[in-house]
């Protein structure tokens, strides 16, 4: 148990280190000089060189990398080359917005997938199961942004029930916050839910074929209680794996969905950074996203151990 924790932690730290090098390296070799971008095409070479010196871009790449990383470790994300604003507070602000979106989307996905997948497995030979299967197949094929546009057309434009876009922090106006959260979270959650449903279905199908479920029935449990008490936890193991992997997809989906719904999240910050050639901002946001995905997958690893006692054997 302890050994596994140490092992997983080591893996996490190594992945973090490697990914920081990759993120920094890719953006460093990218063409386009931030100083030139900041000053415009008409600036003199001297002015550009001066600004490069100010930004510290004239130093060796290794020095820049170490500086950047040390800053991150101390919570200092640096100052934007373009807007001259501190990046740290922007990221914290935007991260909360995206977190709401992603977590709500994930919850919706689970609320859709767990019952739908279970019904699909339990009735896989019956019409209701097949109908759900077909429905989820359609869901898998729809990208989140398209789902978002369709939802806006239906609920905002046609029915006028919900606002089409915008964002209000929960502390400011909880009612408005919820109304504006529903559509973007749905467009993320429904699509992810459709994907997840298929994994839940196959996990539950596997469990239904297990001998221990027959033992449970032989004890006198009826089919559903048997599945609930003996199948759920066993089926959860493969589903949790997918959940961890899906988080990355969900973050990418959030970037697009934030654009569709005009939400000031991490995704729109990233896209703004890219179009403004705000190199340091992009670098920081990408790093934050990478850390989020790695940390969640680390937590998923620990969750396995909680779910499956067979993994607790000390090697």
């Amino acid at each position: 148990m302890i050994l596994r924790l140490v092992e997983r932690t080591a893996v996490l730290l190594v992945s973090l280190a490697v990914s920081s090098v990759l993120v920094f390296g890719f953006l460093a070799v990218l063409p386009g000089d931030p100083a030139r971008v900041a000053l415009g095409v008409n600036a003199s070479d001297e002015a550009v060189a001066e600004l490069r010196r100010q930004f510290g871009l004239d130093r060796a790449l290794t020095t820049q990398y170490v500086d950047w990383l040390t800053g991150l470790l101390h919570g200092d994300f640096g100052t934007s080359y373009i807007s001259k604003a501190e990046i740290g507070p922007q990221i914290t602000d935007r991260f909360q917005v995206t977190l709401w979106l992603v977590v709500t989307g994930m919850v919706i996905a689970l609320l859709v997938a767990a019952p739908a997948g279970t019904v699909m497995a339990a009735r896989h030979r019956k019409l209701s199961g097949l109908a759900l299967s077909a429905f989820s197949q359609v869901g898998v094929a729809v990208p989140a942004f398209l789902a978002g546009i369709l939802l806006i057309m239906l609920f905002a434009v046609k029915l006028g029930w919900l606002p089409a876009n915008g964002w209000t922090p929960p502390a400011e106006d909880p009612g408005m916050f919820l109304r504006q959260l529903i559509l973007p979270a749905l467009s993320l959650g429904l699509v992810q839910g459709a994907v997840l449903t298929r994994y839940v279905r196959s996990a539950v199908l596997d469990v239904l074929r297990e001998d221990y479920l027959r033992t449970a029935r032989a004890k006198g449990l009826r089919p559903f209680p048997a599945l609930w008490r003996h199948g759920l936890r066993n089926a959860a193991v493969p589903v949790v794996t997918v959940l961890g992997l899906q988080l990355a997809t969900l973050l990418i989906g959030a970037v697009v969905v934030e654009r569709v719904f005009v939400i000031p999240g991490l995704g729109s910050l990233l896209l703004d950074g890219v179009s403004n050639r705000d190199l340091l901002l992009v670098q920081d946001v990408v790093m934050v996203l990478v850390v989020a995905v790695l940390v969640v997958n680390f937590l998923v690893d620990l969750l396995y151990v909680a779910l499956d006692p067979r993994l607790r054997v000390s090697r």
Partner: protein
Amino acid sequence: MSSQADRQTSVPVDAVDVVSPADAEASEAAPAVLTVRGLTISVRDLELVSDVDLSVGPGERVGLIGESGSGKSLTALGILGLLPEDVTAAGSVRLSGIDHDLIGAGERRLSRVRGNHLAMVFQEPMTALNPTMRIADQVAEAMLVHRTQSNRRTARAAAVELLDRVQLTGIARAYPHQLSGGQRQRVVLAIALANDPALLICDEPTTALDVTVQAMVLDLILRGVTARDSALLFITHDLAVVATICQRVLVMYGGRVVESGPVREVFTNPRHRYTEGLLAASDLEAADSGPVGTSEPVRRRLPTIQGTVPAAGHFPDGCVFRTRCPHATEVCAERPPWTGDQTRGFACHHPAGADDV
């Protein structure tokens, strides 16, 4: 537990002594615990088990033997109502004390019988237990489901005691993967015996186990049913085990019961040609002793039944054994009638031991 049972050692061979002839007679007189009539199990149009009749008296131990694919396990699952999807059962399965037929009963009513009046030990212990649940909880659940223990605490204490009885101590908080196959099968046995069932069905409970622990598990099964006066339906292809623990035996082939009777009678004087072949193929003494009349210890080959068990649906009509039977004639194309009665009988046109009459 009776004093006789206490006297038993871990060698199951002793068990035969437990049953005095008087006991056996008494059990035959009382109404049967299990009465199966015309049990037919089929998948779509294909009959896998046909028209099986069997009954088990109170406290009686009945063996069900036959090669793989003869329908033994399906019969057991059919009785329990736990057949796989798409497999259906027809006929009648009655359990004494239960006022409805088990065939066609809904899940709600069946689940009250399963694990309570009727329990089962399966063949494969490695996968029979939930890997994410502690042993004692899995045993305790059997009692909580049927409310034979009122709360979690007493159920757990009862579970620990049940585990003690199958000689598993200090493993209550363990998970299945921490136990060996033999230990797991004892846990399954403890679960099956938790509510003192009137009938315990064991489907090849020792087949998947090491030879060294087979005797121990058999002994524990025997002690368990004896202590509770439970009847036992024991499915196996091991004739020696049947001879050791059962009073009566049914021989199945091709989804039919082809012969039944008291173990001693069937094994010493088989009438159906399939039973005869089965016994000859297990007769190690004859194989060791060499041909009669020679002092040289020449090893004979063990006789085998020619051919193999056909795949389901490919058994011949008439007598199901006729394609492999050396005595088969034209008349065998007709279904042989049952000769004898419920307690002793066979279905064969050319029974063994009748040639010289």
